[in-house]
């Protein structure tokens, strides 16, 4: 959250048969598990991961003043030239916007001004929502491939892809740096650099909660690839018996009805996994059907 800067420190601990480096980035606790031979190697790998995560956070967070996102959001209608990395992210956002029929939209962040997801039942008036909706819509943005021109009052937010992008970037760097098998987990979005040597696979546990005793813990054996989770935890609204998840459909300005509580998807990269889980959420009741059609491995949790 803006105003509170958690410390940028890295801690290393020895785990069962791998090293575990932890740090805080992009609003989440992050960890890097690596099969390094010694603490020094583990420190080096974790430093690579942490530095990359903080670099991406500084560059693309909407809470930092002066970075490229801030400059774009305060341009007030003027054109802004962007660097190659930002251009690639914007290009990706454009393609996903088309692919998702407008449901994935990096200008939709302003809708949070209309909605407060605190478990209560304060639903904004339709006029308020449509007013804010005037400032939403990638089709209103002029993207040339190198420079972006946005009407005043609109904002872009890479929050929907930023963490997954960081995970994949880190995985790529670590893969290039050494042959040591690692798994980078940024608050539940994770990717594997290489299959582990000292065990069958990286094991990730999903806890499922039942009413009473008997909580089966599902364990996923991940040899290669990535997992991402979309979920709404405490952020939701309940009015007149209807539950509104916190993912807002940018085409309507309203939250999705009947969205699952959380979706975990396995894919080749964290970005793909994250996009699939977000798009599935936006399908609401049709989330499982959507994911089945994509042929990916996924786990959907619904409200009882």
């Amino acid at each position, binding site marked *: 959250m803006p105003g509170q800067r958690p410390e940028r420190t890295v801690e290393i601990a020895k785990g069962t048969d791998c090293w575990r480096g932890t740090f805080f980035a992009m609003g989440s606790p992050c960890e890097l598990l690596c099969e390094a031979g010694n603490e020094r190697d583990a420190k080096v790998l974790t430093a690579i991961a942490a530095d990359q995560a903080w670099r991406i956070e500084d560059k693309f967070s909407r809470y930092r003043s002066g970075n490229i996102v801030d400059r774009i959001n305060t341009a007030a209608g003027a054109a802004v030239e962007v660097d190659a990395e930002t251009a690639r992210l914007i290009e990706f956002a454009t393609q996903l916007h088309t692919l998702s029929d407008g449901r994935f939209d990096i200008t939709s962040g302003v809708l949070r001004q209309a909605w407060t997801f605190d*478990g209560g039942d304060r639903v904004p008036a339709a006029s308020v929502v449509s007013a804010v909706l005037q400032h939403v819509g990638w089709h209103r943005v002029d993207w040339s491939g190198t420079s972006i021109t946005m009407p005043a009052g609109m904002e872009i937010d890479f929050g929907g892809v930023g963490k997954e992008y960081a995970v994949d970037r880190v995985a790529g760097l670590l893969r290039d740096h050494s042959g040591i098998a690692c798994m980078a987990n940024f608050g539940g979005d994770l990717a594997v650099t290489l299959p582990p040597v000292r065990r069958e696979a990286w094991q990730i546990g999903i*806890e499922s*909660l039942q009413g*009473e*005793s*008997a*909580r089966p813990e599902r364990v996923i054996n991940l040899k290669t690839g990535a997992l991402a989770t979309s979920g709404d*935890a*405490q952020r939701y609204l309940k009015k007149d018996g209807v539950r509104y998840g916190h993912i807002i459909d940018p085409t309507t300005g309203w939250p999705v009805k009947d969205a699952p*509580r959380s979706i975990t998807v396995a894919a080749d990269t964290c970005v793909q996994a994250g996009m699939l889980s977000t798009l599935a959420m936006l399908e609401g009741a049709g989330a499982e059907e959507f994911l089945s059609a994509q042929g990916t491995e996924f786990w959907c949790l619904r*409200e*009882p």
Partner: protein
Amino acid sequence: MKHSILLAALLAIAGCSSMGVEAWDRDILAKDEMQLTSDPVEAALDDHIYFSKEASSGGRGFGGGGCGCN
């Protein structure tokens, strides 16, 4: 007496509708040590010992027993 116990239990369910937590607040309840029977093997062993040495059995689940020790 049996009937009043049953009735009390049913009333308890009705009264219980206001108690509880939302699904995402079940983190503590999900822990191993918070399960009502956190160690089923130990519970079964204890049940067996006390079934063999005392005149009462069960309570938590079924009566236990099934051995020649009583």
